[in-house]
């Protein structure tokens, strides 16, 4: 079976800093891959490279078997129609009410789009009254849910979740995790989630990959995560301060 997304030897450098250094990873259709790794290891950059927001320096990115690295213009726009994205901070448009945020990329009359937005609000457990509020009037958890509704609104076959539970209390985080898992299962989407939150990993992932020093250093099914003997993965999942992973800028 052809992977839905396949990255081979992807490299990206910002100035003197090599963020991605020959990254290889693949996601099969309908699979939920969670990428874990420390801050600043290039997880968000990986997603942005796949979306064509950041050009790669070397390597190959294939979606449904077709090379997408270097796409421009209409071809790049067409490539992006396959994706939805939940940004870390929500990235809701401050100046627009919730319903216009959710239906931003949807076709149709304003009435149709408003109706579609309210349907999507219901999917993420929010009432229709929220539709006319501005993002600034919502709590952090509600903003994340609205951003989730926007990500699924166009029913894209692939959705990226960038730190979906960052900054949320444990209960709200659990609600967001459950919603993501439900969407992955019910809508049969292919998902890549990047997170530090091990509770999210255990709830969302079919497969887990660990990114360190610009490379995937471990990749396997969720069931194999706890039995993994990779010292980096063990340090990460146990949250230990001692181990091979050093804080960036820490004294040796």
């Amino acid at each position, binding site marked *: 079976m052809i992977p839905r997304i396949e990255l081979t030897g992807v490299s990206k450098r910002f100035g003197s800093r090599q963020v991605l250094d020959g990254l290889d990873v693949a996601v099969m259709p309908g699979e939920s891959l969670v990428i874990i790794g420390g801050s600043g290891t290039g997880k968000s950059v990986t997603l*942005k490279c796949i*979306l064509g*927001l950041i050009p790669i320096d070397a390597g190959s990115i294939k979606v449904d078997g077709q090379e997408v690295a270097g796409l421009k213009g209409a071809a790049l*726009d067409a490539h*992006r*129609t396959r*994706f*939805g*994205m939940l*940004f*870390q*901070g929500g*990235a*809701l*448009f*401050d100046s627009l009410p919730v319903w216009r945020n959710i239906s*931003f*990329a949807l076709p149709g009359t304003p009435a149709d789009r408003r109706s579609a937005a309210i349907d999507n609000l219901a999917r993420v457990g929010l009432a229709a009254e929220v539709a006319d509020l501005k993002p600034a009037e919502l709590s952090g958890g509600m903003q994340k849910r609205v951003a989730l509704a*926007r990500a699924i609104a166009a029913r894209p076959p692939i959705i990226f979740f960038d730190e979906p539970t960052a900054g949320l209390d444990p209960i709200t985080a659990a609600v967001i995790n459950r919603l993501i898992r439900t969407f992955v299962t019910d809508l049969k989407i292919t998902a890549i989630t990047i997170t530090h939150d091990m509770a999210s990993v255990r709830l969302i992932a079919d497969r887990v990959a660990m990114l360190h020093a610009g490379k995937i250093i471990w990749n396997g099914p969720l069931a194999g995560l706890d039995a993994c003997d990779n010292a980096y993965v063990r340090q990460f999942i146990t949250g230990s301060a001692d181990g091979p992973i050093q804080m960036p800028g820490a004294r040796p």
Partner: protein
Amino acid sequence: MIVALVAIGAPVLAALASIGRLTRFAVTALSRLLQPPWYPAQLAQQMLVIGWLSLPVVGLTAIFTGSALAQQIFIGGSRFNAASTVPAVTVIGVVRELGPVLGGLMVAGRVASAMAAELGTMRVTEQIDALVTLRTDPFRWLVAPRILAAVLVMPFLVLVSNALGVMGGWLLATQRLGFNSAQYLATTQRYLEADDVVSSLVKAGVFGFFIALMGCYHGYHSGGGAAGVGRATTNAVVSSFILILLSNLIITVIVFGS
């Protein structure tokens, strides 16, 4: 010698690179104005924000400056027994220079900073990336409507600024300096030429372009969190001030220099 060349060359290359980036940004934004989709609601909103909401500050600036100019011309003119030149010099000074330049500077302070802060915040909170993932070109949605709106409304703002500036001079001259109202207005009308008004409106359009371009450019390329947005805002205001004053000089020399 080589060290000296390197010391000079690096900033020159950096400056040229900045000019190149800015030119590319401007060309991209202008090219988006020529092809659909267009966003008329965005354009209307920006015209309201730039034009209507700038009227109070532009109007007050014009009235105060016109009045002060009339007072100074009266004082200076009295030394040469030429106090009667107040209406003529006021209208020429206001319409040719002070109306467009001060109006432009006031709008730049208000609008370029707001644009840079808004786009900069959108950049650092990933809203611009979100626009792209939602298949919306940020140049079409954010930049082009702002530039077009500024170019369209600035001439109207400057017309108002000119009228109020002249009115400020008339008010002070008739209420404090003893000028006859009808005579003042007749002299003003006699000395005001079509070229003065046309050059004023041309300047206004050019200033509007630079104000929006600088606001959008610095905001769009903002980075580094709140400090980065602050820097973008400062750079937008300073660079639009400089471009307004430079382009004003160039247009004045071209139109009136011969």
